[in-house]
């Protein structure tokens, strides 16, 4: 464990390429405890690649990633124990019930039955999904599936929650509900969040902003700082400047 333990996530000089195509280039970022960091970037910016590297689905050849001070490459088990993930694509088993899906995840996290039952009920209750615990995932709508996935990601009480475009394909009320809930988690539970999106309206003024474009971090800081750097008070404008090269 390194001195970077204070930070929930620390990414240093991270680069990644598929064959000759550069996906990430010298990415540096940090997410502090209780911070909601929004990773903003257009499609193909490298957000999913970054998530695959943080979750150790892929190994970085250049650069380092620390979760709660644990090196993802060398101490992957310790690092992943502090991580909760909601992938862009639903990763629930459609044919199993909500409970079966959650028990499966709890077992992978090494939680005993009693503890798992307690945590599942707590998280489902928080998501307003407790009454639907015995339903098959296939019977749930997109918004409810996402809520179950968030409950699942939080079962083992991670320090860092990664969300990869979790609101894609959801209707407006579902999107709003999820955005509010995740921000409340940061505030109340001091959970660190890295939220990948390309939707400007999901950003709160209190968020930290990381703008990723063509594999490079174009700007990072508070919403105010990033907008200030682009001489505007509108995030959309700042994002446009940073990703489309519009002259200031």
């Amino acid at each position, binding site marked *: 464990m390194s001195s970077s333990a204070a930070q929930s996530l620390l990414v240093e000089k991270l680069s990644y390429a*598929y*064959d000759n195509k550069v*996906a990430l280039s010298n990415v540096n970022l940090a997410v502090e405890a209780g911070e909601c960091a929004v990773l903003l970037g257009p499609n193909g910016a490298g957000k*999913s*690649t970054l*998530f*695959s590297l943080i*979750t*150790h*689905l*892929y*190994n970085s*050849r250049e650069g380092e990633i620390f979760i709660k001070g644990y090196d993802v490459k060398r101490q*992957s*088990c*310790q*690092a*992943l*124990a502090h*991580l909760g*993930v909601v*992938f862009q*694509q*639903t*990763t*629930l*088993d459609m*044919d*199993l019930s909500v409970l*079966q899906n959650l*028990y*499966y*995840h*709890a*077992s*992978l*996290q*090494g*939680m*005993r039955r009693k503890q798992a039952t307690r945590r599942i009920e707590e998280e489902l209750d928080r998501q307003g999904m407790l009454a639907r615990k015995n339903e098959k995932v296939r019977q749930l709508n997109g918004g409810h599936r996402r809520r179950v996935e968030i409950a699942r990601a939080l079962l083992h009480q991670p320090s860092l929650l990664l969300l990869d475009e979790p609101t894609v394909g959801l209707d407006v009320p579902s999107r709003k509900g999820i955005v509010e809930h995740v921000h409340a988690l940061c505030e109340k539970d001091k959970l660190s969040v890295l939220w990948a999106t390309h939707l400007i309206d999901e950003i709160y003024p209190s968020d930290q902003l990381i703008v990723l474009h063509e594999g490079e971090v174009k700007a990072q800081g508070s919403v105010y700082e990033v907008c200030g750097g682009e001489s505007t008070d509108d995030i959309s404008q700042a994002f446009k400047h940073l990703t489309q090269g519009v002259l200031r």
Partner: protein
Amino acid sequence: MKLGHAAIALKGIIKRELWRFLLQRERFVAALVRPLVWLFVFAAGFRSTLGIAIIPPYETYILYEVYIAAGLIGMIQLFNGMQSSLSMVYDREMGSMKTLLVSPLPRWFLLTGKLMAGTFVSILQAYVFLLVAWFYDIQAPWLGYLSLFPALVLAGLMLGALGMLLSSFIKQLENFSGVMNFVIFPMFFMSTALYPLWKIKESSELLHTLASYNPFSQAVELLRFAMYGQFNGYAFLYTLAAFVIFMTVAVWGYNPSKGMMVKKTGGPS
């Protein structure tokens, strides 16, 4: 890795596989019907043309149905291994493989756990088949049903590991039909599942050589001997070696930096 954590996770992985298997009744029926059709139709038809001489582990002349029974158990495990491979490719495409791989346990353990879960299901299928076969007068000694268990474990692990290895090569679900044509059928037909080696040798030296080196043949022989309470050391070592090799390559295939996943997919799915 903490042992308690590993045990809970393993139990969870096996339980999930079982839940899925019980939900997919068609899969269970198909897994049972396939070998039974071979037994009731194919073997019955060939009974008169294929006499089997006295060869170990049999101590007397046997009907063709008796000979083919061990091969059909092997077939159940072969198809189950490939089915697991198919479901792993499906899981990878659907994303649920990610849930498993981001768990805080070593990747080799997670993959072995998945393999053990698949093997467990194939053993259940094999014993249900044997129960039906028992009523069809294909009866092994009682002890044979017990000694068959460890052989089923090893054969199931070896064939499951082969499936896992293939799943790390296969980029898309659509490519899976190739596995049927180029792996399952050749492995099954070029083996001792349907005919003993000496009979294959009578028709073709080349086929005989291929069948001798086919790991599926050795798995079937291991099962055949175990069914009669006997231990075939050569078949055991051959199957074990094949398992170790297949599993090593499969774990390598799923390694985030070295494996074929990166090369084949060209990036995160």
